[in-house]
């Protein structure tokens, strides 16, 4: 892959210098965002707010990683939730069964995810469009069924029970609510920063090219299959990290985490937030979770409210919120509609 990237870097120097220029700014923004998030507990006593941000971290990483596939590469995965579930179960099982330190379990979970995602991806990314979507969905159901039927390991439909122990490491105690919160924020910010780097790198532009015209990409010498597989595995790693945060939040892992509804939620978050901007899915996550939390507080007819919102975005705006906002700004500024690539 390095040869490929080097070749591209030479071919598109303009983008390379631009990305270098923005890299430091991205880093600064990430640092600022982390400082703001980390200082929240000092100003607000509300535990529900911290819970909210922890859940946003889990779903935000998941949805943004899905956007690497959907928005940047044009691969509509309906089975991305399997890696969310895999992360939750992998981490939960390692912590329950072996009692290794948290960072070791974290890395081990990512290693497992890499292996599984490579195997599944190698089969899936050969296919296009609806076939890709359905094969990923099929693999997701395979993993979900395995979790249900392998009851001796996974606890079947009752999930991993008995809580996940979190021994203290490097002075971080994840059973402490604030520590868990800060750790989740750190994982979110680092994850987003890494994904931003991937999206802005020459490799990221290769992905856009594959999305726009895979044949052309292949004619100029890009190994399309390998690039697709690489992003499939990378996206799986971030989804898995989201799953780990969720497992820590609920202190367990449940088969629902690997069910197709989680993938559906990811797609829906992307629809809400928009797929043409990097932060679209993050905005979508905040929107969906806020919507979920406020609406369930007020009524049990959550489905009908959500349905109306989907209709509004799909039929009314015909794009995600961030797409809409960005277009609106661009139109206001130069009088002509400009869209992100």
């Amino acid at each position: 892959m390095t040869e490929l990237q080097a070749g591209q870097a030479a071919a598109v120097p303009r983008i390379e210098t631009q990305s270098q220029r923005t890299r430091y700014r991205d880093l600064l923004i990430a640092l600022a965002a982390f400082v703001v998030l980390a200082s929240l507990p000092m100003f607000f006593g509300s535990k529900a707010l911290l819970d909210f941000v922890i859940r946003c971290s889990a779903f935000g990483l998941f949805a943004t990683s899905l956007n690497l596939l959907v928005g940047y590469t044009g691969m509509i995965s309906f089975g991305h939730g399997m890696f969310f579930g895999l992360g939750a179960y992998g981490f939960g099982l390692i912590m329950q069964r072996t009692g290794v330190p948290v960072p070791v379990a974290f890395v081990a979970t990512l290693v497992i995810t890499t292996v599984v995602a490579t195997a599944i991806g190698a089969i899936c990314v050969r296919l296009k469009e609806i076939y890709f979507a359905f094969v990923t969905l099929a693999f997701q159901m395979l993993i979900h069924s395995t979790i249900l039927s392998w009851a001796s390991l996974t606890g079947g439909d009752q999930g991993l029970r008995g809580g996940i122990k979190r021994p203290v490491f490097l002075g971080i105690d994840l059973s402490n609510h604030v520590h868990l919160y800060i750790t989740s924020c750190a994982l979110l910010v680092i994850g987003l920063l890494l994904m931003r780097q991937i999206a802005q790198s020459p490799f990221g532009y290769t992905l856009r090219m594959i999305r726009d015209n895979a044949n052309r990409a292949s004619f100029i010498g890009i190994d399309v299959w390998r690039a697709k597989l690489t992003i499939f595995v990378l996206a799986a790693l971030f989804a898995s990290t989201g799953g780990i945060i969720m497992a820590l939040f609920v202190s367990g892992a449940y088969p629902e985490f690997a069910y197709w509804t989680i993938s559906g939620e990811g797609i829906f978050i992307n629809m809400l937030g928009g797929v043409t901007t990097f932060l679209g899915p993050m905005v979508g996550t905040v929107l969906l979770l806020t919507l979920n939390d406020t609406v369930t507080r007020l009524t049990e007819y959550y489905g009908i409210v959500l349905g109306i919102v989907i209709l509004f975005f799909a039929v009314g705006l015909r794009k995600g919120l961030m797409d809409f906002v960005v277009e609106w700004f661009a139109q206001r500024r130069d009088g002509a509609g400009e869209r992100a690539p």
Partner: protein
Amino acid sequence: MTRTRKPGVSRRATLAMMGAGAVTFATPWVARAQAKTIKIGMPTILSGRVAQLGTSSRNGVMLEVEKVNAAGGLAGRQIEMVIRDSKGQPQEAARVARELVNTDGCELLFDGEASSGSFAVHEVARDLGVLCIHTCSEASSLTADPKQHIPNAFRSVRQGIHDSIVGGSYAAAISKAKGLKKWATCSPDYAYGRDTTGEFTLYLKRFAPDVEIISESWPKLFQPDYTEVVTKILQAKPQALYSCLWGGDLTSYIDQANIYAMFSAMEVFAVNMADYTALTVVKNLPKGIHSGNRYIKTYPATAENAAWGDAYKAKYNEYPTNWSWQNATAVMLLSEAVKKANSTDGKKIADALRGLTIKCPFGADGTVTMRAEDQTLVGYAIGWGTTIPQEPYVPEVKAGDWKTIFELEAEWKKSKGYT
């Protein structure tokens, strides 16, 4: 190549939106001051396929809460129930439970979740230390497994293992009397179905050793069509069939099996039949299906139970479910425990609850007990009988023997490595 969008716009927009969003939605997160009322939070399933679990649980709770409030409340404090939908998702159940305690100021939790959701709420109770009564989950391991045990969680619910012991001994007696040796099973393919069927056949064989299982079917949960299951069973020609299908699955199964006249070809034991949710929905309820009691107002055959069932029907225009009585029992237990502790402090209530015996319309002998050792409900009415197509649906119920249940339950716990 299209022009790259100038960076900065999206970020500024994002920051502005995030700021606006934070201001708008931070308002409900500001913790409220504690009022004189005592709030009880309850995450449950109010939407989707098993919404009836949540609605009938809520009805059961509210019926009793109104009585307690009319009588002066819990140690002088009126109860305010805060009941929210978890949509049957464990991560939502955990979130809702945490929100109820942390934001809404609920001092106690009723966990109206089934299966995985109840374990998720259990972890919240472990984490927050708040008193929690599980009011719907029948999974035996929730209280039997010592790894699950926490001092602040109780269960006011029947258990799979109790049903299997009573069902096994009842079925064995009928087997011996009628010479039913060849059995088939047909249960939903998930932990509850597999475990309950396994335990039922274990006790059936223990009481009637010459019984043989000749066919097993495991339809998926919420499967719409049972034709292949029904024909498979008919081809195996068993003398008796056991099933722990429930709710809509059981009623569709019976409606479809009726077409093949299955119920005249064999004795059928369906543990979850005698619940009004199933009894009143089946189109042609066959006569003579053996069933465990879920909730039926004629068993226990006491004036208190009948009056409770009628009061519920009068208020909600439908009969109570198994979940209704379990949730009502939680309120009754709580109310008595608060009287005994003379306090609404969670720890003191928990101490009072352990080993508490109360008068209750759903008790086998008019009382139920919160067993101290594993903090779960015992002594509730449990029995088996046969159906008829009209009210009272199950005219005679043969009561299970709690002494036998305790003995075999202790043995089962040992075999599972729980004691």
